[in-house]
């Protein structure tokens, strides 16, 4: 069940440095961030009110949700501010292959989708 699969997502220059972009992968909206030296991927929903994290301002290794300013760490998914929330978002491993950003997703995500389609 914990099997994972790499998905080729987009050319790296499609995401400007220190910005994020959303992409639908297996019916899940994922935010992809270009931190210059690496890419990080999280779910594109702020745990507060579902704001689009990809549209936030990147602050170091964190992003600040554009709706109410919750601050989410992009590497761990932990909410940094407000510190008391204890909330977090899912994160996904990434790598660059020949200039293409790849994201690793749990296979279970596809299977759920395939069952629905079937």
């Amino acid at each position, binding site marked *: 069940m914990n099997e994972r699969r790499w*998905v*080729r*997502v*987009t*050319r790296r220059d*499609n*995401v*400007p*440095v*220190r*910005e994020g*972009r*959303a*992409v*639908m*992968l*297996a019916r899940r909206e994922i935010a*992809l961030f270009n931190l210059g030296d690496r890419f990080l991927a999280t779910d594109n929903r702020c745990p507060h*009110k*579902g*704001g*689009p994290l990809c*549209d*936030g*301002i*990147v*602050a*170091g*290794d964190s992003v*600040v949700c*554009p*709706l109410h*300013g919750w*601050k989410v760490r992009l590497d761990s998914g932990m909410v940094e501010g407000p510190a008391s929330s204890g909330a977090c978002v899912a994160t996904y491993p990434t790598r660059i292959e020949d200039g*293409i950003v790849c994201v690793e*997703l749990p296979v279970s995500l*596809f299977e759920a*989708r*395939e069952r629905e*389609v079937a």
Partner: protein
Amino acid sequence: MKRLVVVGNGMAGMACLEQILAFAPRFEVTVFGEETHPNYNRVLLSSVLAGEKKAEDIVINGPEWYRGHGIDLRVGVRIVDVDPLARTITGDDGAVTPYDTLLLATGSTPWFPPIAGLGKGGVFAFRTLDDTRALMARSGPETRAVVIGGGLLGLEAARGLQVRGCDVTVVHVLDTLMERQLDKAAGVYVRAKMESLGIRVLLGRTTKAILGNGHAAGVEFADGSTVDADLVVVATGIRPSVELGRKARLTVNRGIVVNDLMETSDPNIFAVGECTEHNGICYGLVAPLFEQGKVLAGTIAGNPGPRYAGSVQAAKLKIMGVDVFSAGAWEEAPGVEPVRYEDPGLGVYKKLSLRDGKLAGVILVGDAGDSHRYMDWLRSGANLDRARRHLLCPPPSEDAGLDVAEMPESAIVCGCIGVTKGTIIHAIHHRGVNTLSQLKEVTRASTGCGSCTRLCEDLLRAVAPEFEEEVKTAICGCLPFAEDRLREMLRSERLKSVQEVLDIYGNGRGCEICKPALSYMLDMLWCGDHVEDRSARFINDRVHANIQKDGTFSVVPRIRGGVTSAAELRRIADVAEKYNVRMVKITGSQRIDLLGVKKEDLPKVWADLDMPSGQAYTKGVRMVKTCVGTDFCRFGVQDSTSVGIELERRFEQLYTPHKVKMAAVGCPRNCAEATVKDIGLVGQEGGWQVVVGGAAGKSVRKADLLTTVETSEAALEAAELFFQYYRENANFLERTYDFVDRVGIEKIRKETVYAPESVKHALRDRFARSKQRAVDPWLERREPRHPMQFIPLQPLEQVLA
């Protein structure tokens, strides 16, 4: 009255003199200073070089202080001789001055290694304000600078020069930086920090000669290699200035020898500061000078107090973002237990040296936040057995206030001046201290290197009954500067991109507070000729629409003065249907809002509307609300509709510190509510009132009258002067109602409508330049900033394999 003559107008001499005057103001005092400046804080020269402070900011005692105490100050005079029998001194101007008590505070002079060609042009020391000014005049973008000396001063000079735009190389004779303060491991960390700032570091190089024909063109090393340079700074150490001590036939070793009461071998001559030697040690840092000064003041004033028992040497590197702190005896030796922590990834290195369960020395690189804790341990000699598990990572405290509360009364808060927590609390309770500047005035705390400012504020906040926060200090933690200061720095350093500012002055990362603020400042300062970095803007300013709670956007086209046409309304209606706009709403600003538009549809919506952006999403010019003025209204006395449309046309597309809402009304009935707008034009018989700083939102404030004028053009011009003045002087996110309140309408009038013509011209000129570069942001539908500015990513790979 006895004549007290002080030779040396520096920090040590004047700090001691201040104490003497406090104890016994019964001397006739004469002070000789070789430099032509008032007494200034030498420790902060590197901040002046780096542009963080101005020369006048570091003055400790201005001329009025000398006058107020009846001190005869003679600057620009070098004392060349002392006759201890006749008790006179002689200046280089030949004047002879008698003394009863002589205080030598001659400090030290730069020491230069034997390098050929030190006399060439472009070679500087870095010791005085004049040196600093000369360096500032000669350095700038593209200057190649070599700093010889990798000690505290050399590194600070290097950073200062680099911030001024120079290409900087630091050359050090040893193979490790700051060897007097740091062990080799720490030196490696500091080297990495300097290099990450873009400063080249060459170690193990002995400089042989300055190259160049009359003027420095490079330096040559003993191994024959060379480095090109237009500017060479020699910061290779200092030597106590003891010449007068010798002339007075005092006992002199390396420095003028003093005992525990700071007496020299002559009962009428005393010495303090860097020129002295106590117990075989010559101190070269600021804190010991103050400690000596206190003891000596008691001795001279005739009521000897505590004896001077030597100082704990502590040094802090004053480079923004490079925390380096060192104190005490950190060297490894038999019987000394080192305790280390390091994290190369973070660039943090900490080492404590313990001897007999007590702290003997400490080195901190990358995080010096706990330095005061270690200084306390060093000074008090506390036994650390019980704190052993928390030596380097203290148990987390609930908040900063607790930290202050836990400090003992005897703990030193300000290490430079030696002010304890008890002294500060006493000043607060008994001297009516409520603000940081009062605290500085009364106790002098935080007037040295300034690193204890936070702690002082915490104490004031906790203890002072009426603590007043002074002008909001920094924008945020990323960038430790107040905005007005920052504006000056960006202007003088010619910085044009947000990331550049963060890399040079900040933590390199930035956040949602400072990035948009810097974006605004750069756009305003360079009149639009800056490097626009959309990643530093809020999403609204990346896609020129207002984000809604569900992630869709709202679209508000510009309808100047609230005047539209049937054709425009038809297009708006068509767009609303074509893109399934969920709500079409008339706004409070006489405009139409289309709500619930998807990001990818924005360019198409704008194209179909074929109207400019109303910029309802940004900190910029929103709208001008108007009444129907003279065309239809039977009361109207001024053509508010046309004037309002013209006002909007002139100001639109410009960014402002916060949103700017305006109105123009044709008579004092004020139907479009001009008196509660950021800028309002109120028509009256024979002219206009221009009012500013009104609000009717979160705050409600009636606008202040800026001026009354006769013609519409004059009204527009007055509005323009205020508008540009607000753009240039308000803090980011400061609405005009706060700005006008803070600055005061009188001052604003004086600096805008009643300013000299040259000032008004300059304001208008900068406004015009900004306006010339401003464009309708919705035109980015044709030429997006980035190919994927509006288009959602499509995965390359079908996820259904």
